[in-house]
């Protein structure tokens, strides 16, 4: 049985080993990805992101438990934690919060180190998700590293992005900044038994109103004042307004409502055409990256090392700029550029 066949047949050891090959970008991993690709495109990818300590791992734990108990779906979890920028090492600790999921053959948890990526997920996370998708996992939950404000790569990968907040983590100014809140399809206030939950909810709600302008009537100096929404180019389209869900992960509270919100979002994605649009955008990015990589590789095969070094020396001597160097390398004749320059002088 080939590796691909084993994966499709549900062999967990083969799956685990392939994930390593794919993560390390080995030729065997690439070959398997090619074979598995026709089997992808069925899973629902859910991204879970938020600041460190908001309770992402505990939330993922409860979310997976809920799905297993009520919908009997096979679930893969990709948990990303940061790599050290100095040693490349990592401590991947998300499993500590996911011990309730042990012993369930319908769940597969894989920890990943970010390995130098700064967007909140690792470079290979998308490929890892593809493998799980092909292996028949219906829901793939991707937990990002603890994010600050701009690690938004997960939104490009996931169909549904959940941004996790916790009470007392920031005021309304944090909430109007660009970045992480903008990518939320669903906002979750976790640890909702903590004080300050009303303030967090109010700040988030006001941000959402600004982000998704709708006609509103407000009382101003005793008169009704109508605030019309700005005209948007895609106004005819269905609009998704991110709901705010409150959860207490340590007690498993609020998950029925959260899963309902996720289900509604999936329905919206299909109805609005966004599911296909996101799929297209994701595959286009992948195609683009593969194309760039291949072109660079092919180009490097054609250009001689001596020529490359020669051009580099010219750049270092400030004889030519890096852009001129690229022109020269693509034309294959750096001398010509130099000749032209000396003639001009």
């Amino acid at each position: 049985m080939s590796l691909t066949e084993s994966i499709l047949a549900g062999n967990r050891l083969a799956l685990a080993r392939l994930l390593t090959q794919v993560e390390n970008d080995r030729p065997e991993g690439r070959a398997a990805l090619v074979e598995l690709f026709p089997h992808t495109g069925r899973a629902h990818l859910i991204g879970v992101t938020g600041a460190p300590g908001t309770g992402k791992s505990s939330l993922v734990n409860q979310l997976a438990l809920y799905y297993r108990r009520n919908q009997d779906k096979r679930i893969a979890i990709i948990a990303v934690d940061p790599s050290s920028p100095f040693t490349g090492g990592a401590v991947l600790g998300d499993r500590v919060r996911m011990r309730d999921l042990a012993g369930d053959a319908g769940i597969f948890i894989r920890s990943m180190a970010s390995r130098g990526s700064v967007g909140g997920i690792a470079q290979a996370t998308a490929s890892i998700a593809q493998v799980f998708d092909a292996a028949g996992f219906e829901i793939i939950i991707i937990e990002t590293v603890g994010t600050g404000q701009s690690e938004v790569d997960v939104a490009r990968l996931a169909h549904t992005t959940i941004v996790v907040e916790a009470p007392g983590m920031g005021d309304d100014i944090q909430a109007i900044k660009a970045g992480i809140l903008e990518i939320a399809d669903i906002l979750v206030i976790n640890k909702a038994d903590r004080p300050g939950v009303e303030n967090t909810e109010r700040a988030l709600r006001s941000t959402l109103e600004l982000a998704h302008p709708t006609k509103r009537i407000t009382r101003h100096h005793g008169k009704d004042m109508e605030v019309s929404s700005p005209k948007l180019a895609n106004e005819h389209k269905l609009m998704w307004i991110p709901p705010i869900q409150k959860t207490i992960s340590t007690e498993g509270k609020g998950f029925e409502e959260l899963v309902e919100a996720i289900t509604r979002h999936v329905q919206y994605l299909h109805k609005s055409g966004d599911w296909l649009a996101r799929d297209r955008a994701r595959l286009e990015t992948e195609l683009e990256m593969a194309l760039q990589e291949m072109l660079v590789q092919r180009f490097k095969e054609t250009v001689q090392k001596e020529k490359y070094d020669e051009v580099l020396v010219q750049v270092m001597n400030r004889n030519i700029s890096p852009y001129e160097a690229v022109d020269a390398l693509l034309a294959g004749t750096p001398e010509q550029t130099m000749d032209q320059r000396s003639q001009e002088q």
Partner: protein
Amino acid sequence: MTEKKIRVLVAKPGLDGHDRGAKVVARALRDAGMEVIYTGLRQTPEMIAEAALQEDVDVVGLSILSGAHMALAPRILELLKANGQESVRVFIGGIIPDEDMPRLKEMGITGIYGPGASTEDIIRDVREAVK
């Protein structure tokens, strides 16, 4: 192509709740450039074997201070083998009486470390074992 990273599962089987040693080792291996999956306290042998499989680790490090090593270690080795992971190297840290060491080694435990063991030795042995 990315270089092969050494992946290590650091786990605490059994019922004692002292994980300082496990955390020190996890941190040391991290600083040595390895990817360490830390699973937390009170893991059953089944949980450890399952995590080792899903994470496709090269090495499992067990921290045992409860005295139950002669029961836990063989069970974990057996489960790893049953899962097809006989190539995974298993290390133990904790309170292990001298007289138990030969038998643990015989079972297939690669390295045993007591109080005062240096993290440099552990790092060196782990690197050596996965070569």
